[in-house]
């Protein structure tokens, strides 16, 4: 007995020593401040939704406890009563060396508000872990906290360390497997400092606007699009005061992180820590719910897996092929349960039913000939005979009458009843509650969950009466005979995006569509290029920019923008009577900034001049020619400056030809006259015209229109040169 007590005493003293050194604290936000899980979150807070039959918050708390966090402040807002009640019932309040304290608020609408409130409470007295209650992880915090502390010693401005993990986004849909948008991060490869954070970008082109200073200030930066933000942050106390100082910070990433990155007055820095072999992910939407459930079943989150009782979950056994079964299951002999399935305690499964890749909660009863694929069925659900359920989320107490079918992506909230033979279309969301009116779906929608959440709680007391009313009200047609619930209409904008965040795998047609649009986009880019190169194949040849396909595309883009710029500059010059040398100066700077040759310049200026000529009102073709002539006359010097070389002059002719063919057909009858005019004005030399004619000799008939038109001039020039010889 004595040695035993000594051992215990030693352990305790060790712990107290730890406590005095760094009592590691954590803030757990038990509210997502988002509406992605509606309509389910109208009735139950997101953190209490079961993830593989265990409430999400248990994963987070169990992980915090195992990672050595000693004090957790659980911030509850929407449905705060439910969260507190749950925690009181669970064993989390009675853990040794792990204290859980709840902080309740009714008027916080964002993470920013929550942190400001916690700052006022003055409970955090050191570095802390900031996470939300829907995080699943098994990473060890020791290393990241060590790194954070060491950085803080050297640089007190290093206020936050963000945990990231490799995750490649799909090139087709531009979202990660968690259903979040492609994330772009710029990180200093040496110091791991975060320099840039952008969640959504122009998805097809992948254009990220980077600040020049970013490149200037840092000797090297690494740009990543294959990282996933785990939403696990190690923060210093300053973070809380920063939120208090900047009362407009709401969102942790969109406002706080970006705010710190952009605002360099205070010089606060954010660093990153990449984890490799451990797991960390946050449930942001239905798709991540699906992905993370699958990861848990495939044991990536070990030891937080169903057959290890890390919280108060019931004993579950792992059988072959990733089948988890709790006790007291009544299963018919003919029922077939496929791999990667979890079946909860006391569930009954009837004859010839087929279940695969699904999670089924406690006390469900499943009839005969039911087929369930990739679905998440919570507790006490009744599914009658012959139902077909694919990729759906079905909450507690739902009744699905015989012969009903759910198409992929359906979400059935609590206690909904689906009538006989009813087919629920894909991506429908059914709830006993009416859809909130459109009013709060404005910009603040992101934070509206809570505000309406408080409203919801007032509703809950009258829910029963409401239910009864609704039962009579509900149009039976939508949910079949005897159906109870409201089908939420999907708002216009969101409909297209619904498949992105749904539990259902991305349907093949959407995928094909995405690939198609990707290809279209590429084609469009090519078309742009082609449009130019109809006559510009040679042009690009003289440009010398056809080094790589990508480059060509880029330079095509650039040349279009460039031409516009030149046109605008020229227009200004005409209107404001700017002198030729000044215009040349401006043109030069434009040319340099777009990295163009003087041939491009000549072409663009000529194009602008012709456009200008067209602008001058003209009644007859003759007048048009005259105005063109006058403009050419006026800006003779400018054009000459850029068309000193034969190549430049050829470019001008080409450009003119192209114009006549496409954009400004008005000039096409006057092609030869204007060509002659340009010759007379010494802008074009005879060599240029002759070479142009020679090059066009082998061209197609359609391309030769203008050569033929100016046949006379060319003939005359030829003869003249021969005579000279």
């Amino acid at each position, binding site marked *: 007995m004595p040695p035993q007590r000594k051992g215990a005493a030693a352990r305790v003293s060790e712990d107290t020593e730890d406590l005095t050194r760094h009592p590691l604290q954590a803030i757990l936000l038990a509210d997502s401040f988002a509406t992605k899980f509606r309509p389910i979150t109208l009735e139950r807070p997101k953190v209490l939704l079961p993830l593989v039959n265990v409430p999400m918050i248990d994963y987070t708390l169990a992980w915090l406890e195992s990672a050595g966090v000693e004090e957790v402040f659980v911030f509850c807002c929407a449905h705060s009563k439910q969260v507190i009640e749950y925690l009181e019932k669970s064993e989390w309040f009675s853990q040794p060396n792990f204290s859980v304290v709840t902080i309740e608020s009714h008027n916080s609408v964002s993470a920013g508000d929550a942190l400001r409130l916690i700052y006022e409470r003055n409970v955090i007295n050191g570095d802390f872990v900031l996470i939300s209650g829907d995080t699943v992880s*098994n990473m060890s915090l020791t290393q990241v906290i060590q790194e954070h502390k060491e950085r803080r010693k050297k640089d007190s401005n290093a206020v936050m360390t963000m945990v990231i993990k490799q995750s*490649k986004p*799909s090139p087709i849909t531009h979202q990660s497997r968690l259903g979040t948008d492609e994330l772009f991060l710029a990180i200093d490869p040496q110091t791991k400092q975060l320099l840039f954070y952008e969640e959504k970008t122009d998805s097809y082109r992948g254009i990220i606007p980077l600040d020049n200073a970013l490149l200037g200030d840092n000797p090297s930066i690494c740009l990543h699009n294959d990282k996933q933000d785990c939403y696990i942050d190690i923060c210093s106390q300053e973070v809380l005061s920063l939120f208090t100082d900047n009362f407009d910070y709401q969102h942790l990433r969109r406002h706080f992180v970006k705010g710190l990155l952009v605002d360099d007055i205070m010089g606060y820095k954010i660093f990153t820590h990449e984890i490799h072999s451990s797991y960390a992910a946050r449930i942001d939407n239905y798709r991540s719910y699906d992905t993370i459930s699958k990861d848990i079943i495939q*044991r*990536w989150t*070990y030891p937080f897996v169903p057959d*290890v*009782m890390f919280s108060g979950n019931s*004993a579950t056994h792992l059988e072959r092929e990733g089948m988890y079964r709790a006790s007291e299951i009544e299963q018919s002999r003919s029922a077939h349960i496929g791999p990667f399935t979890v079946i909860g305690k006391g569930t009954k499964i009837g004859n010839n039913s087929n279940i695969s890749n699904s999670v089924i909660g406690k006390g469900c009863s499943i009839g005969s000939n039911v087929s369930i694929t*990739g679905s998440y069925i919570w507790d006490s659900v009744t599914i009658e005979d012959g139902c077909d359920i694919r990729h759906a989320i079905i909450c507690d107490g739902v009744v699905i009458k015989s012969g009903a079918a759910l198409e992929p992506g359906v979400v059935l909230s609590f206690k909904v009843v689906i009538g006989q033979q009813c087919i629920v279309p894909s991506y429908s969301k059914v709830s006993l509650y009416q859809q909130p009116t459109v009013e709060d779906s404005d910009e603040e929608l992101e934070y509206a969950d809570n505000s309406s959440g408080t409203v919801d709680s007032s509703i809950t007391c009258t829910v029963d009466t409401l239910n009864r009313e609704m039962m009579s009200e509900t149009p039976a047609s939508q949910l079949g005979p005897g159906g109870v619930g409201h089908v939420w209409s999907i708002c216009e904008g969101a409909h297209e995006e619904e498949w992105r965040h749904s539990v259902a795998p991305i349907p093949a047609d959407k995928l094909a569509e995405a690939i198609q649009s990707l290809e279209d986009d590429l084609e469009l880019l090519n078309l742009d290029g082609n449009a130019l190169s109809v006559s510009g194949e040679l042009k690009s040849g003289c440009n010398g920019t056809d080094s790589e396909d990508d480059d060509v595309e880029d330079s095509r883009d650039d040349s279009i923008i460039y031409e516009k710029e030149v046109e605008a500059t020229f227009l200004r010059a005409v209107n404001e009577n700017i002198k030729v040398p000044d215009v040349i100066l401006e043109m030069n700077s434009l040319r340099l900034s777009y990295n163009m040759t003087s041939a491009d310049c000549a072409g663009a200026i000529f194009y602008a001049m012709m456009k200008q000529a067209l602008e001058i009102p003209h009644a007859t073709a003759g007048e048009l020619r005259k105005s063109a002539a006058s403009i050419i006359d006026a800006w003779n010097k400018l054009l000459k400056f850029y068309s000193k070389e034969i190549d430049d002059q050829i470019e001008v002719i080409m450009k003119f030809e192209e114009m006549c063919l496409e954009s400004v057909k008005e000039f096409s009858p006057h092609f030869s006259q204007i060509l002659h005019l340009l010759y007379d004005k010494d802008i074009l030399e005879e060599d240029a015209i002759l070479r142009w004619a020679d090059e066009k000799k082998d061209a197609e008939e359609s391309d030769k229109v203008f050569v033929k038109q100016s046949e006379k001039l060319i003939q005359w020039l030829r003869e003249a040169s021969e005579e000279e010889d």
Partner: protein
Amino acid sequence: MPGTQTLVNELVTKLKKRRVEGSQETALLTAELLRSVISQLKVPPTNQAETLIEAVKSVGELLVAANPVELAVGNIVRRVLHIIRDEDFSVAISSAGGDDRETAEQNGFRVQTVAAGPPSRSPSLHAILDRTPDSERAHHSSRDGDSFEGKGKSADRNAESWKLKHDVIRAVNELIEDINSCHEQIAEQSVELIHQNEILLTFGRSRTVREFLCAAKEKRRSFRVFVAEGAPKYQGHALAKDLGARGLQTTVITDSAVFAMISRVNMVVVGVHAVMANGGVIGPVGLNMVALAARKHAVPFVVVAGPHKLCPLYPQNPQVLLNEMRCPSELLQDGEFSDCMGVCNGSGNPLLNVVNPAFDYVPPELVSLFITDIGGYNPSFMHRLIYDYYSADDLDLQKRSNS
């Protein structure tokens, strides 16, 4: 004094969360916990043994359920139960309860004060067979206690209850001692088994194996050791480092090279997770392959195992969870495979699946010899050892709760 309940809860959470690694540590923690459970239990004057057994069983059941994969927990619980039965039995023998209970108690007290030493700590089959005549003999020889009748009844009663508890605690202490010292006991036998200039092969990491090899080295045996690295935990690397530091000639090979190297090896020495009643062993994954290679080349396959590894259950028992599926990220990093992990085939089954079992089962036919702390045994002799250490009533810890 911390309540028993908190201590139990503490270990249960530890086991549940897989925070105790290694069967020796688990065994020690379990034994220490049971010892404090016994010491804090208020024993009624009657049915002492029954009460103790009840208490230990209920705690044991919780512990076993917390981590059914770690067989050492169940082994220790059964060992302690056996100790209680055994002590109760020996008390009964020595006290030889006459016609009234007081006499028996008197006697027990006297035996205790005299401290005549434990009659049989680990009773052999003989003791069990001799039980009835023994007790009867005791019955007859218990007449001298009559003279004490009527004196200090309550004091005697306390003393008697204290006596059983005391004996049990002393025996549990001995068990803890045994577990602690098993490495030395096993290591002592190494000189007899390892010969000069031999080549040994081991697999994974085992403290017992390390001590076993080092002991031979200290006795100036020169030999070489091949260490198979033991993917995916690569504990062989750590073992090789330890051995190298202790001055042994060590060569690290991959698990897949075992078959290629086995022909040069004189003996395979491995540590295991558990030894089953039939003489089969549960060891780190890949052990069966090593055993098969050894059999193919007729190399002796020697298993070193402490007393806590002896499991009285048979591997075909449905209660025995032979395996634990560990985290797939020990094999590959999900980040690098993130793009193919989400992909599913038509029926929603993931195309990429990673399985990482922790244990392997090696049938008794492939094991040549067991080295335990009390000597070397043949696999077919294991059941005999087990019947010395465990009583058949305790084999099923969970059955009682179901009924």
